[in-house]
């Protein structure tokens, strides 16, 4: 059986006027289902670029990319949206919650696009909020929640569609050490339950939660240790 994520010679270049930036410069990488991966590296080394490709938010300039058996490059914009909806959960550094919208509605957002009926959306997002420890605050708006609580809502949102892969780009980047530890505990638990977790971080303590650490420099992998 092939790996959950297969990357072969991934190249991503950005053209800024006459300047060409090689954000990824030939990355080959397999990630199996159930892995817990931390991606590290200096700023500008291509970590976010890779995450965008793994999340099917962007297309590589060249190379091959199969995610959950799907050739992402062959999918049209609507098909790729549906693919993300079903397969990937995103957690962002800046949470990206909808303002003046309840935690429940924020967590339920992906389900609107899965075409689930209202009652089912409420049921599932309620369960996920409970799972991240926010069962009591489902009607709070983001402004009424702490940073850590907001990130929990974002994690509930990422989980609500039962994704195979959880992608988190610096999920603790905006949080203090104590809150970071709480959030990482949630990722640990999710990985134990079988979800493939891939996260980007600058902090070694955070990376140490993962069982595999990949280090980037100048768009290539310089270290990959388990």
């Amino acid at each position, binding site marked *: 059986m092939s790996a959950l994520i297969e990357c072969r010679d991934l190249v991503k270049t950005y053209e800024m006027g006459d300047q060409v930036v090689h954000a990824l410069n030939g990355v080959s990488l397999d990630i199996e289902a159930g892995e817990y991966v931390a991606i590290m590296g200096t700023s500008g080394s291509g970590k976010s670029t890779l995450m*965008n490709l793994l*999340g099917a*938010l*962007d297309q590589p300039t060249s190379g091959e990319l199969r995610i959950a058996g799907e050739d992402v490059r062959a999918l049209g*914009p*609507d098909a790729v*949206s*549906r693919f*993300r*909806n*079903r397969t990937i959960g*995103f957690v*962002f550094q800046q949470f*990206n919650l*909808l*303002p*003046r*919208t309840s935690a429940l*509605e924020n967590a339920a*957002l*992906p389900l*609107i*696009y*899965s*075409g689930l009926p*209202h009652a089912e959306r409420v049921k599932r997002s309620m369960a996920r909020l409970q799972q991240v420890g926010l069962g009591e605050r489902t009607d709070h708006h983001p402004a009424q929640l702490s940073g850590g609580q907001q990130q929990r809502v974002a994690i509930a*949102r990422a989980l609500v*569609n039962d994704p195979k892969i959880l992608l988190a780009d610096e999920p603790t980047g905006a949080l203090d050490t104590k809150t970071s530890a709480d959030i990482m505990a949630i990722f640990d638990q999710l990985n134990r339950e079988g979800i493939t977790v891939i996260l980007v971080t600058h902090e070694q303590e955070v990376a140490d939660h993962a069982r595999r650490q990949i280090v980037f420099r100048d768009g290539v992998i310089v270290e990959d240790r388990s």
Partner: protein
Amino acid sequence: MNALASLRVALTALRINALRSALAMLGVIIGVASVIVLVSISEGTKQAVEAQIASFGANLLIIRPGSSMFGGRRGGAGSADPMTDGDVVAIRTEIAGLAGVSGEVSASTTLVFGGINWTSRIQGVNPDYFSARGWVIAEGRAFSGAEDVSGRRYVVVGQTIVQELFDGASPLGQAIRIGGQPFEVIGTLERKGETSWGQDQDDVVFAPLSTVRQRFGAGMSATVRDAVSTIYADIAPGESTSRVIADIEDLLRIRREIQPGAEDDFAVGSLAEFIRARNETESQLGLLLAVGAGIVLLVGGIGIMNIMLVSVTERTREIGLRLAVGARRADVRNQFLIESIVLCVIGGLAGLVVGVGGTLVYAEVGQLDIVIDPVIVAIAIGASAFVGVFFGLYPAHRASRLNPIDALRFE
């Protein structure tokens, strides 16, 4: 995503920015409200005028000596030869397509019954007059042609006379003294009410033309013994007004010996034509209103588009997020399109409330007739929905074309 979910998302977004949504609607509200007020008032005025004209006799031709009747100038009315009984008879016998022809003379006089005096005018007319001028007999009868010719002292009276002289009781068979002479009341007329300028149309007394001429000397001068002040001709249904007018003009030019090329010294006026001319200005006014409404809605629509573009820019990260978690381009486009339509339709409904309210207040204060046409209301709401689609499409399209990564990174 289904339509209901889209609607819910749109309503939530509008609620979150309630004040801005209200301001964005303002143009549409004002547009729809002003259209409804203007159209209702102009429609009301139009109907009032038409009712007035109908009560006067819509197919009526009015023939008088002198030149133009409905223009500003009515020069030479006194100087030209009067119309005569001979003209009445000639028109009645020689012009095809007329339902009735009547002359008219009148004299100011005093009516006496019991102890009551009432100053009024007595009008001498031929029997055709009643149908030509849209009078309906309420009680009794009108006088006949023979009674007209023989100069019987019969009168047909309006409801004001019935009220003032007989206190509402039936006056049939009663004798009233008019100018000192006894007249028998043989009929009463149904009420017409007041004209829009407040004149009582029911303060009327009609007697045979020859009677009024003989007894009151109306229409008699040293030279002419059988003059009438006005001839009324009622065009039969389905006849061409312009053809009948042309025939009457030809006939009168011959009778009055007017040389070819010389100007008429009489005028044949058509109320129907008057109405038509009026309707023309009316429909031009309607066109002007429609153009004005279109401009206001256009401005309102540009306001909506502006707000929607601001909204799209402001919510770029939200759009990026929605795309990331599975929204298709059409979902994003529909979300903003529905927002724009909802904005406009709510604005349209608010404008409807304001417009109908304003119209009612105007009618109350100005004591005017208004007509709130459901078609106009439907058009106003439909137009606001159209504005929503038309001016929402571009911002919505722009939103749907955003790239999720760029949108998510947007500051």
